[in-house]
């Protein structure tokens, strides 16, 4: 696909349009993108390996730090998987509290996304509006869990903090305030012509492609795929709660915006139901430090889509293997498809539209550009330099002698 007339533009790892270090190689024909490849791994820290050297409780806090935005998603998913291996049923109240924090996290994440999307299309007022409103839910999370981000509320066998009587009212009040603001955003999304025109028909991912490329979460749901782990395979308290799975058949960035705004409204209703239905009782059960041998896969609907954890236990207090498949990894394949034959100016919003989280995604995964057979290897700066020297040597340009002479002169 990389034709000779094309211009190749590297974007990242540090780029104003990107909030995280990732790198894209875009081939352009005029203003149109002909091919795009993604290079990940700048955020790879080796968490999965580190998990094997720590105990289950230590892992929980480490796994929470896979991603700061969907930290509760990862820790809940891991805790659920370990509980499944150990054969533990956690108290119902703990399940409700986990669900509550999960929904509050979804609210904060979707509001965050709405702001970032506004920023990417040059609508900074929206960024400031949504981030101001987001502080309401951040305050609530700080009140309930003790920390604004990386809540640390989960433990294996339940949760660590109970909801105090006065907090119930604070949660409901916050939901009222947020619902009113979200209604305004829905109105904005449906009436503001600049927003509609900028987002419609951008980053199109047909239903067939979405299915083929395995898109998950709001990205998949905006292409008409009605898939939501909360409904399909209910965990925590979702089986007892009533909510709709929001989908859209618009297949573009505008559809993804509508899905996320719609999900915000559903989350408010879920939080209200939790507050009504939450039973009294214990919040933890005792779990042995050593988890019996076995393996399990946990699924969880993170704000960005389906999160998957695999844990293998070997009977000691440390896991044998932990594997995480974050939602962005499932969606990133779709980005190349969305970018094809689009304008370069659409790139930031198309990438932002899947709500990428590269710190989640940077597990050890090799992604190879199948269209580019010649350049299979990724090189660091030094090897590239050495290769360049070799390349010129083969063609009769040799600076080694000159370099030696120069070095000698400098020595003298």
């Amino acid at each position, binding site marked *: 696909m990389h034709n000779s007339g094309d211009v190749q533009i590297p974007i990242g790892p540090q780029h104003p349009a990107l*909030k*995280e270090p990732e790198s894209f190689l875009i081939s352009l024909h005029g203003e149109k993108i002909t091919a795009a490849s993604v290079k990940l791994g700048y955020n790879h820290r080796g968490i999965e390996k580190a998990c094997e050297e720590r105990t289950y409780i230590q892992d929980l806090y480490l796994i929470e730090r896979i991603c700061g935005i969907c930290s509760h998603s990862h820790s809940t998913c891991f805790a659920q998987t370990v509980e499944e291996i150990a054969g533990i049923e956690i108290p119902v109240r703990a399940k409700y509290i986990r669900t509550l924090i999960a929904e509050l996290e979804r609210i904060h994440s979707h509001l965050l996304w709405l702001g970032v999307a506004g920023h990417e299309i040059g609508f900074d007022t929206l960024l400031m509006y949504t*981030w101001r409103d987001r502080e309401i839910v951040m305050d609530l999370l700080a009140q309930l869990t003790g920390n604004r981000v990386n809540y640390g509320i989960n433990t294996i066998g339940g949760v660590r903090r109970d909801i105090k009587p006065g907090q119930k009212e604070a949660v409901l009040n916050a939901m009222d305030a947020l619902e009113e603001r979200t209604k305004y955003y829905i109105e904005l999304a449906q009436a503001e012509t600049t927003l509609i025109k900028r987002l419609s028909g951008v980053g199109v991912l047909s239903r067939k492609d979405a299915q083929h490329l395995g898109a998950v979460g709001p990205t998949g749901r905006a292409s008409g795929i009605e898939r939501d782990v909360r409904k399909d395979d209910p965990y925590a308290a979702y089986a007892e709660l009533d909510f709709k799975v929001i989908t859209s058949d618009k297949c573009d960035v505008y559809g993804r915006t509508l899905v996320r705004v719609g999900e915000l409204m559903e989350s408010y209703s879920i939080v209200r139901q939790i507050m009504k239905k939450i039973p009294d009782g214990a919040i933890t059960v005792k779990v042995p430090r050593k988890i019996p041998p076995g393996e399990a896969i946990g699924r969880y609907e993170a704000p960005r889509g389906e999160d998957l954890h695999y844990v293998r236990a070997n009977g000691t207090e440390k896991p044998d293997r932990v594997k995480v498949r974050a939602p962005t990894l499932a969606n990133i394949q779709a980005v190349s498809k969305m970018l094809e034959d689009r304008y370069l100016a659409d790139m930031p919003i198309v990438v932002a539209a899947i709500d990428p989280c590269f710190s989640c995604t940077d597990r050890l995964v090799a992604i190879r550009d199948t269209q580019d057979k010649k350049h299979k290897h990724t090189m660091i700066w030094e090897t590239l330099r050495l290769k360049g020297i070799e390349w010129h040597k083969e063609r009769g340009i040799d600076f080694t002698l000159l370099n030696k002479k120069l070095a000698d002169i400098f020595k003298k």
Partner: protein
Amino acid sequence: MSIATKIINWSRLKSPWVLHFNTGACNACDIEIIASLTPRYDIERFGVVLKATPRHADVLLCSGPVTKQIESRLLRIYEQMLEPKFVVAIGTCACTGGVFDGCYNVKGGINSVIPVSAYIPGCPASPKAIIDGVVKLLKSLEEK
């Protein structure tokens, strides 16, 4: 000190332009940095403006432990910045490596690669802590 340098120093302290660079963080510190720029905390009160390129920035806000792949890039960005330049390490990971210390792909804190002027601990560092740290950095420069 000549009048010209006095004016330059005054204006530098009144509007430090910052560049945010994620060196392998978990996004938590990054969203808190952005939160400190938005209406509730509004760090722009102190003249702090987020810039897109290292060539415009006076202060480099780094978050996260330095991964091996980002190391050379961090150095390059630091070298692209003009003197005088300051580096602020935001979050425990950026200060020391935090929970990721000892992971095979993690080099350690920011100070293992480039010199750091201010450390703001916390997991994540809250917007209040970030504002406090930045203001303290500016105050310490005032004295010099």
